[in-house]
């Protein structure tokens, strides 16, 4: 058996050319796929004007964010790398250090040094990489409790949001200047972070025995789930301003989009979480009450942890779809990654360059969503082993 697996000719015969029909199908598929890749490669090496990407790299990353304020982004990035390294180091302190990620990091750092990402401040990419590695070693050296990491990330979240926009006396960066990948990530991170607790609360509320609470939760969940996200976003953009008097300071567009997406995502989250809660056998609940835990303790110590664990894949799936759904904000005039891609295509210098940008954006989206599912897989495995 082992030999047949390694024998390519045999494998081909058994799997692709076993019957005449299979042979024809294989040949057709090979031709179609071959032609596709031939044309794609031919186009990308001869016709494509990839120069559009480095020339507009900063724009794709941060949009119209002012150059002289870019240090805010770099400071946030370096802080995040340090913290990420720290958490990573802590979580792997029991195991030997894997080499592959460091090789990858080194390659990225080197590439950044050589290519500069079309911008002199690209030299800060290696700094961020070094920060990450330093974080790993700190994490492995210092023994910390899980709690420390929760606090660290909560604080870091607010520090970064603050850093990106706050006025330090020399003028802040209004949210109208946030764009590109920065805005996409910000929108999704804030919406994900905010919609998770809200979703859990709604799920618990829906199971409540108080008719007012459960009624409110049911109405909210069903109404929001019955409306497309795009309608929620339009509502937030076009109607919310009329609820305030004309000279009233307007809630800015980014905040409105975040609120819309959070409420939308929370309704779906609630149903996912409720599925998980229903999955917990009632014996668990009864046993917890029997040993004298209060209703709240039962919920937070027994039911929720088990319920949430069961629905991690669904929840991550929802986060991934929320991440991709942020691209809808383009139609309400926010320049997220997709919006900025459209804007670059309409720069007169790059008119007629139509395919290069969507392809690049696809790759960026894939990197993010795939990392998210890898992280989820990792989390699932860890929770399984700790069980």
């Amino acid at each position, binding site marked *: 058996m082992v030999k047949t697996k390694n024998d390519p000719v045999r494998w081909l015969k058994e799997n692709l050319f076993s019957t005449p029909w299979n042979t024809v199908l294989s040949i057709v598929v090979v031709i179609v796929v071959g032609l596709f890749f031939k044309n794609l490669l031919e186009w990308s090496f001869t016709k494509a004007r990839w120069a559009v990407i480095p020339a507009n790299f900063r724009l794709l990353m941060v*949009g119209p964010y002012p150059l002289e304020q870019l240090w805010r982004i770099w400071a946030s990035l370096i802080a995040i790398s340090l913290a990420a390294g720290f958490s990573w180091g802590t979580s792997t302190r029991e195991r030997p250090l894997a080499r592959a990620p460091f090789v990858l990091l080194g390659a990225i750092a080197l590439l950044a040094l050589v290519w500069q990402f079309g911008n002199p401040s690209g030299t800060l990419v290696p700094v961020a990489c070094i920060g990450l590695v330093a974080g790993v070693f700190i994490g492995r050296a210092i023994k910390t409790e899980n709690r420390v990491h929760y606090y660290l990330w909560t604080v870091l979240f607010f520090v970064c949001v603050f850093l990106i926009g706050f006025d330090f006396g020399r003028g802040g960066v209004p949210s109208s200047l946030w764009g590109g990948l920065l805005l996409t990530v910000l929108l999704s991170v804030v919406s994900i972070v905010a919609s998770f607790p809200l979703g859990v609360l709604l799920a618990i509320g829906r199971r409540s025995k108080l008719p007012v609470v459960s009624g409110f939760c049911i109405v909210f969940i069903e109404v929001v789930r019955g409306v497309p996200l795009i309608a929620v976003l339009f509502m937030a953009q076009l109607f919310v301003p009329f609820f305030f008097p004309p000279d009233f300071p307007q809630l800015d567009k980014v905040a409105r989009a975040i609120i819309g997406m959070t409420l939308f995502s929370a309704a779906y989250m609630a149903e996912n979480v409720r599925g998980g809660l229903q999955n917990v056998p009632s014996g668990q609940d009864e046993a917890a009450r029997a040993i004298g835990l209060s209703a709240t303790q039962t919920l937070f110590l027994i039911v929720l942890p088990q319920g949430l664990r069961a629905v991690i894949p669904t929840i991550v799936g929802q986060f991934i779809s929320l991440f991709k759904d942020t691209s809808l904000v383009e139609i309400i005039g926010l320049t997220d990654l997709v919006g900025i891609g459209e804007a670059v295509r309409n720069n007169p210098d790059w008119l007629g360059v139509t395919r290069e940008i969507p392809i690049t954006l696809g790759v960026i989206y894939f990197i993010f969503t795939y990392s998210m599912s890898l992280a989820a897989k990792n989390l699932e495995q860890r929770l399984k082993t700790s069980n």
Partner: protein
Amino acid sequence: MNLKTIAIGALALTAISASIATISVAQTQSNSRLDVVKKRGKLICGVNDKLAGFGFLDSNGKYSGFDVDFCKGVAAAVFGDASKVDYVPLTAAARFTAIQSGEVDVVFRNTTYTSSRDGEVGVDFGPIVFYDGQGVMVKSESPAKRITDLDGATICTNQGTTTEQNINDYGRLKKKQFKVVTYSDFDKVMAAFDQGRCDAVTTDSSGLAARRATAAKPEAYRIMSEIISKEPLAPFFAQNDSRWADVVRWTVLSTIYAEEIDLNSRNIDGAKTSGDPVVRRFLGLEGNSGKGFGLTADFAVDVVKAIGNYKEIYDRNLGPKTKLHIPRTLNANYENGGLLYAPPFR
């Protein structure tokens, strides 16, 4: 719930809505937008960020383009500083709401000035900054000389605009059968055109010129000379605010007037020594035209110094040295056969 609770609830609701109404009325009756802008220290200008030449983000992330330059002009007129602008990118759907809700002060966003928009939407329009019109482009080898020669042909355009309606109306008027096919955006229209799925494409002639100029082989396309619709593009702002309307109007007019009297961003400082009363009045050295709008007497100097006269703005963004290379035709000065004509500064 007893009657008393209901009554109290109703009373409270009425009180709240009444107070909100009073606030809104008080706010709308307050000062002109000009005072709001001056107090804020910045102009908030609604623009397009996805239209080559008119409003887009350059590689440095700065808003740029023909419409954007006029935003800078208004800021220069109010503050003497063209950089005091915050840009708000607006979609076609959101642009009128943004004015109605007071989110932006003025919108320069390739918007066609029409009676229904002026009458029903609750905005007022400023002077026309660009005379556009819907045209038709065919391949150079096409035998069609006039749009009516395209009887039975497939004409492609993008969705969600009035172009589809215009071409259908035109066909009905001329009793010709056009097969109109729409695509979600104009890149797809051009791709279909190049693949021979469309015999002709139609959109605003500025757009056609831009597409032709940036094509791999511009000579492969021919734009027909006929125009089938009027698309005058103008800025707009909240209605019934004539002081603010004056500021926007005369900012635009000062660029047109400067071209008429041969003043531009380079020679306007030297013109201060001129003895010509027309020039002296424009520069605010005689008379006080700007004062009436709540601006300085020499606001036009600030405008022209910051963004140039109309010709400079046009050439910088749409002219022969740019990739778009849109011929001026209707947008030439009246002395050159165009429609641009500014009332006198006096």
